[in-house]
């Protein structure tokens, strides 16, 4: 019978943990704040609540005596939250950089089945058909606003790593690009002049690769090009070097062909008309997508992998941290066994004891979560990194430790604290008063 009872209560506890985790993950922050306020109200205005508060105060006051073991909880959870938030910040930063590169009002056209600009090729005639299609916005002179572009890849060394080779994208753009990509602003120097071997360099590329400063020259395809300006766009274009389409085409012997055509649409709604008219044209076999869709898709794979790795590593570390917390809290209630038994003997009920021990663990967990998230925020927010993107070339991106991610980290910390505190708390509440008083 007692065995069945034990089994039953064990299963019940597991069920509580499972339900708590499920609800916890789904809960938005206002609900959690509301729960915290409710808890505070309960602790101030009911008798049980005030008892809980008193017991918690005693627990917290004695934390300093158990500094070593309490710090295990704090540091363990800080580690979990730090690694998790850093990985997610990397994933989010990369996704955000690519997502913000595109919008709904510009469309990009590639040869059918190409997937990335680097693989695509469109001859002059096809490019002209695309530019003249309905739905493309025209400027004051009635000329469609479009840019036929080339993307080639050059080897440049990374800064501080002299012998390394990185694939850096070079984009040949037409003059309309300034109307097409409003987010691009010159921050240093001037724009390139069509027909000359001049390049402007994205801020990210300039920071990551050697020799990309205004006034310096680099060798591309056996020719010397001069860097005349640096631009800022806050997105993936910052990893690129831009020159005039014709100059890039002649240097890389591309003739009059281009790899992609990007057009400005009359409105986001005009996309369907534009796409339908190109699909209906028997002269063309092209893939049409909005730039938001095109760049968004490029981040999908890596973002997913990084998220999956971050969460897997986080879960394994969290398991380790939960057992660390369990150890600490079991030791804590053991050290306080006599005191808890005395409280029970003078009339305190089980609930205040359970809640106070859980509160203590969760406060330690919260501290750990704040430390972990804080360290990551200080070190990694805005940290620049680069990886190979869809065009077989480097995409420079920044880690983004958003408020949402910090919140996720805190949520994980509190969940670990909850599980780590629940079992010791239940044990404390069930402690037979007489045996506990006799101990020591």
């Amino acid at each position: 019978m007692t065995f069945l009872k034990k089994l039953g209560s064990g299963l019940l506890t597991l069920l509580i943990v499972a339900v708590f985790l499920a609800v916890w993950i789904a809960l938005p922050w206002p609900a959690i704040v509301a729960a915290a306020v409710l808890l505070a109200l309960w602790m101030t205005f009911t008798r049980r609540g005030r008892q809980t508060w008193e017991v918690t105060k005693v627990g917290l006051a004695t934390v300093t005596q158990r500094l070593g073991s309490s710090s295990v909880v704090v540091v363990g959870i800080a580690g979990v939250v730090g690694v998790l938030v850093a990985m997610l910040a990397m994933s989010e930063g990369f996704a955000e950089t690519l997502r913000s590169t595109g919008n709904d009002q510009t469309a990009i056209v590639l040869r059918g089945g190409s997937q990335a600009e680097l693989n695509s090729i469109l001859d002059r005639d096809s490019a002209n058909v695309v530019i003249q299609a309905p739905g493309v916005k025209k400027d004051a002179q009635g000329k469609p606003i479009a840019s036929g572009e080339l993307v080639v890849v050059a080897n440049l060394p990374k800064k501080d790593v002299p012998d390394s080779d990185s694939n850096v994208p070079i984009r040949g753009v037409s003059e309309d690009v300034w109307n097409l990509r409003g987010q691009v602003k010159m921050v240093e120097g001037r724009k390139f002049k069509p027909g000359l071997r001049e390049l402007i360099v994205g801020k990210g590329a300039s920071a990551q690769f050697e020799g990309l400063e205004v006034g310096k020259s680099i060798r591309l395809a056996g020719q010397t090009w001069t860097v005349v300006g640096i631009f800022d766009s806050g997105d993936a274009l910052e990893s690129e070097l831009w020159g005039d389409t014709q100059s890039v085409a002649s240097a890389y012997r591309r003739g009059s062909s281009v790899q992609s055509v990007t057009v400005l649409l009359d409105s986001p709604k005009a996309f369907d008309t534009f796409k339908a008219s190109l699909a209906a044209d028997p002269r063309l076999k092209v893939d049409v997508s909005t730039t938001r869709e095109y760049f968004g898709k490029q981040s999908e794979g890596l973002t997913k992998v990084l998220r999956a790795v971050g969460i897997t590593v986080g879960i394994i570390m969290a398991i380790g941290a939960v057992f660390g917390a369990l150890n600490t809290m079991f030791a804590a209630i053991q050290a306080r066994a006599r005191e808890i038994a005395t409280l029970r003997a003078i009339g305190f009920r089980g609930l205040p004891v359970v809640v106070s021990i859980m509160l203590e663990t969760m406060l330690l967990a919260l501290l750990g979560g704040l430390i972990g998230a804080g360290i990551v925020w200080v070190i990694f927010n805005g940290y620049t990194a680069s990886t190979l993107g869809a065009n077989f070339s480097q995409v420079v991106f920044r880690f983004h430790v958003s408020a949402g991610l910090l919140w996720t980290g805190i949520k994980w910390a509190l969940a670990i604290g909850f599980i780590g505190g629940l079992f010791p708390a239940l044990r404390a509440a069930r402690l037979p008063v007489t045996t506990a008083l006799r101990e020591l």
Partner: protein
Amino acid sequence: MKYLHLIWAALFRRKARTFFTLISILAAFLLFGMLDATRAAFSSGDSVIGVDRLVTTSRYSIIQSLPSSLGGRIAAVPGVATVASANWFGGIYQDPKNFVLSFAVSDNFLDVYREIELPADQRKAFDATRTGAVVGEPLAKRFGWKVGDKIPLQSTIFPQRNGDKTWPFDIVGIYKAAPGAANGTDQQFFFHHKYFQEANAFQGIGTTVGWYIVKLTSPDKADAVAKAIDALSANSDHETKTQTEQAFNASFAKQLGDIGLIVSAIMGAVFFTLILLTGNTMAQAVRERTNELAVLKTIGFSSRSVLCMVLAEGVLLLLLGGILGLALAGVVVPIVAKGSGGMLNLPPLGAQTWVLGIVLMLIIGALVGLLPAIRAMRLNIVDALAGR
């Protein structure tokens, strides 16, 4: 060794605590095993088989191809045994998600890559079939290809001359990678450069190759030969860059990101936490046993043997949890690799991982045992027994 049962008894004095600590250690080493496999997957540069091979690419960029006439001139450089070539094909099978690492290769390519183990009759069939292709075993398994199958592969770059983007291939051979081959060797798809050249819509591409693979007569001539090859095309419009295959692979992996650094950072955080956690457990355990240790000393155990016993306890704790963790990683890693559908090529846990893991267990074990052990050694019998 004769104290083993004593150490064991001390370790499991409090079963719950030791069990919880073991799970934390297990989690840490499970993570270590998995992350080390990931790191190994991205550092294919350590293959020992390719030490006598150089890779010659365009100096300006990986996307620029080299003239096929260069091959003959490279072959004439002293120190060069054979020259093979390869072109990037960028194949996908049925769905854009199913990317196939596919290359159009010269006829002698398979001779240069000895680690590609293809049965002799299949090799003959490959040489005799214009549209023939050989594929690695895991790749063939992934798509259910068998020898004799006719499969279509779409190129993201090259259409056929008739405008069709789908290229038909005959699977004539399925190869295995020899032990010691670079990770991912058995995930590739090779076919004849001749087919690629004749059927390609881009006429110019046919007369160029993507890169040359140069087999040396002896690995220690690598530097001199590389310089001589690059000198052949100096100041031309197709200057080359020649490096060892290892350097080429390593620089490629580097471009993805510094995986090694990320892995070390995570493991640094994990092990720091682990040391604190187990250190705390050990300190608790020894503090509780003050009386018992005093008794041990009283009945004649020397201070040194008490020190050793506590140290051994820490090491044993780490070894127990760590070996279980690594063994679990050994089970989990292949499952993860399989579950990713060929996306993530995790190699099975190597001897190197095990050795590094066990060294880490020993170091961490000694580290967490040290302070409590010194405390136990310095224990004054009278004070301890009196409970002071």
